[in-house]
């Protein structure tokens, strides 16, 4: 076409006009740390595995999860999920049911028989003492790094507190067995009934290059209670441990559990299942001060467990106990009132905490702190090459924390074996709720896992909480806001008035075309998940 001069122009010729020169600030993409990841003691990249689960790519999601945690099916049942408390979605409607999805992925893996391959052999041998969550986690991660691992377990089966502390109604043993078997299948050597009495000697004898200790805190803490019949006072560790054997503990019709932690609740619920008509938790402070997880307490109450606040046990007689009423002082500590009460009790179970058994550590002369083994940032004790984690060291005593310790220690051991020092990667800035543009998320309420019929769970040890099926696991995964991490929603690509966002294709995210970006900031304002920020242009 012979076009008339000036009034008729070739299309798209404005590309010659680089409007990027107008800009005083530029948008940049970044990854912020989602609050779930920030709070996960096992260091899971929750947002990332949910991203894959959203697509129905469960195996990929599981593999991302397995990068940090070898026991998702266990964790999906016993973790108290602080990630959900931190979840930004909680401020929008309800937090994402991360724990449910994790369990779904874990169960899916067991069902499908997904396996993890060990790393290329390094020729190094590591000894792991204790097969609880910390020990198993360390063994698993060390194996992935290519080290030969031998786990020493004093009991006749692996699992530690997961087997001997957590009731079956919360963690069915076939699930635990399945996840342990998968670790063993990676080539981890498991020696049961193998109590280590002299660590240094064993290490030298078997030629181990390093050691991880994860023997837990197995000794139930006692309180002095004058008792006419001492046999009627027992501790929670023993009761729960006793549940693993054929001879179940005999607690009687009226059971009093003394303490306010999760273990107290576990025992009280176990007592109900063993046939106790009355299972009462006696706690010296108030409900809100109780360290036990609220969800656990709620389920216990539903099952008929009773709670008696602001009460201490002063004495135990045959068939009764004497308790004293307490009141909180200004600092929130319970103080005796001098008011006493007698209540019937066939047995008293003390759930007042557990201590580390220091017997086997004597030869090592490890430095202790508040009853725990002292470790450095890489989980190494003051004995070179000996690392420790789980309930043995200072920190919250949960399965999740233990798994995190095992992972961290494994990475530190790996560094140590290679003559380097383990460096923790710096954390990204937090993706706070204020960074989000929550308009873009549609309302989608949380799915609630089915709860076992009440009557049934009072009398059996069947698992109380059911799992999500695929439909609602997918639904739940898709509730994730993807805080601080691009989930390829195309909003930046769409809202740019200057077409200055280049879409790179599925999985490749986006790139700014600074030739044309005028720096209006619409992409930042409208990004749902806070994965873009404005930075000043250099002068």
């Amino acid at each position, binding site marked *: 076409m012979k076009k008339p001069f000036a009034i008729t122009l070739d299309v798209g010729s404005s590309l010659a006009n680089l409007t990027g020169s107008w800009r005083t600030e530029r948008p940049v993409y970044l990854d912020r740390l989602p609050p779930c990841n920030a709070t996960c003691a096992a260091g899971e990249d929750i947002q990332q595995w949910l991203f894959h689960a959203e697509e129905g790519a469960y195996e990929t999601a599981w593999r991302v999860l397995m990068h940090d945690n070898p026991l998702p099916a266990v964790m999906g049942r016993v973790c108290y999920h602080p990630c959900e408390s931190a979840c930004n979605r909680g401020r929008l409607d309800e937090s994402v049911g991360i724990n449910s999805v994790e369990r779904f992925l874990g169960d899916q893996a067991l069902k499908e028989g997904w396996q993890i391959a060990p790393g290329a052999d390094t020729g190094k041998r590591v000894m792991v003492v204790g097969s609880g969550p910390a020990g198993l986690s360390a063994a698993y991660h060390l194996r992935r790094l290519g080290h030969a691992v031998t786990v020493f377990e004093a009991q006749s089966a692996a699992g530690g507190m997961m087997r001997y502390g957590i009731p079956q109604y919360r963690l069915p043993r076939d699930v635990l067995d399945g996840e342990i078997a998968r670790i063993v299948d990676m080539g981890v050597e498991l020696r049961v009934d193998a109590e280590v009495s002299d660590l240094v000697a064993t290490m030298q004898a078997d030629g181990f290059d390093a050691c991880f200790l994860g023997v837990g805190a197995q000794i139930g803490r006692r309180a002095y209670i004058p008792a006419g019949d001492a046999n009627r006072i027992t501790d929670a560790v023993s009761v729960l441990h006793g549940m693993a054997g054929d001879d179940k503990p005999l607690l009687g019709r009226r059971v009093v559990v003394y303490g306010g932690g999760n273990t107290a609740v576990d025992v009280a619920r176990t007592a109900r299942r063993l046939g106790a008509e009355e299972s009462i938790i006696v706690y010296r402070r108030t409900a809100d001060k109780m360290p036990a997880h609220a969800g656990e307490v709620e389920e216990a109450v539903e099952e008929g467990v009773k709670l008696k606040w602001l009460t201490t046990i002063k004495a135990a007689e045959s068939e009764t106990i004497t308790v004293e009423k307490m009141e909180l002082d200004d600092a929130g500590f319970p103080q005796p009132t001098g008011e006493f009460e007698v209540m019937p009790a066939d047995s008293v179970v003390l759930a007042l905490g557990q201590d580390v058994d220091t017997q086997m550590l004597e030869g090592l002369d490890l430095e202790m702190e508040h009853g725990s083994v002292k470790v450095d940032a890489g989980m190494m004790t003051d004995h070179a090459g000996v690392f420790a984690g789980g309930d043995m060291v200072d920190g919250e005593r949960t399965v999740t924390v233990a798994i995190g310790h095992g992972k961290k220690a494994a990475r530190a051991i790996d560094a140590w074996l290679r003559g380097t020092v383990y460096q923790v990667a710096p954390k990204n800035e937090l993706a706070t709720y204020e960074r989000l543009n929550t308009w*873009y998320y549609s309302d989608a309420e949380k799915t609630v896992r089915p709860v076992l019929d009440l009557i049934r769970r009072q009398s059996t040890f069947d698992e109380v909480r059911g799992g999500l099926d695929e439909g609602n696991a997918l639904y739940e995964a898709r509730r994730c806001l993807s805080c601080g991490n691009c989930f390829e929603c195309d909003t930046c690509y769409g809202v740019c008035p200057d077409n200055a966002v280049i879409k790179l294709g599925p999985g490749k995210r986006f790139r700014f075309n600074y030739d044309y970006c005028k720096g209006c*900031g619409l992409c930042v304002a409208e990004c749902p998940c806070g994965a873009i920020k404005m930075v000043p242009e250099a002068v």
Partner: protein
Amino acid sequence: MKTSHIKFYQTGTYTVGNRLLSDADRSVQSTMERTNSLNSGHRACQGCGEALGARYAIDAAMRATGNRLIAANATGCLEVFSTPYPETSWQIPWIHSLFGNTAAVATGVAAALKVQGRDNTRVVAQGGDGGTTDIGFGCLSGMFERNDDVLYICYDNEAYMNTGVQRSSATPPAARTATTQAVGRSPGNVFGQGKNVPLIAMAHEIPYVATASVADVRDLEDKVTKAMAISGARYVHILVPCPLGWGSAPHDTIKLARLAIESGLFPVFEAEHGEITGRRHIRRQVPVEDYLRPQKRFAHLFKPVLQTDRLAALQAVADRNIRRFDLLEREDQV
């Protein structure tokens, strides 16, 4: 055509795209194949709502017509910022004639296409609110009345921005413009004036009338797509905030469009042959104050003293819209 508001999965209903959707269900703006009918290098201000709205609308029309589209454009910001010699940002056959004759030019294009048998090529006319509701209104009404095969798109930024923010018949009450200054006893634009062209279009009983905004690209695209599937005169009125004229931050362009809708001041609805057939319900209702406050053109409502009576009058406008267009979702509609 289905335009019901299904949940495109929890994270994708309101976003531009959603990687979980099938290709057919994705918005035009989320695709790598979108035509960018209004290309980079145009001279619109930072955060221009009109540039955004025009690309949303024309890209959608391009997809709907298999890229067989011709556009006629009124004089105004869109024309000026997109086609200063020697550069044009348009990627489609496009003509600018005058300020007030765009609908008629489009009629001519449509007539030519019809007589030439180029039935698969379609016509869009587009202009700002001044070119549509004021100076171009006669031609627009004529095009409607004849039911010419033209989709007219009005990009409404509520004043004559190109000439320096003067009042148009689409300027809202109380808004400060260069010809309705924020001075005197009743500062800003007069209450009780103005022209509702979507309703006037409906009075012509043309096949399709819709309102939309840059705050909801899916809704906008649905409406343009629907319009392109219909023959005869069609009208889509798109709210496009203007940072310059509204005195708002460039990054607030979409937010303000959203607040205009959520407050009820800008009803989003569609009508066929003069009957309202759908409305976009308010999702999270806000008082008009939330919408007005971030805009300097309404600053005189808040300082030096809070103008409660005038705010109440504006709230009454929103409330009337909500009643009139049934903008609140009732329990029985969920």
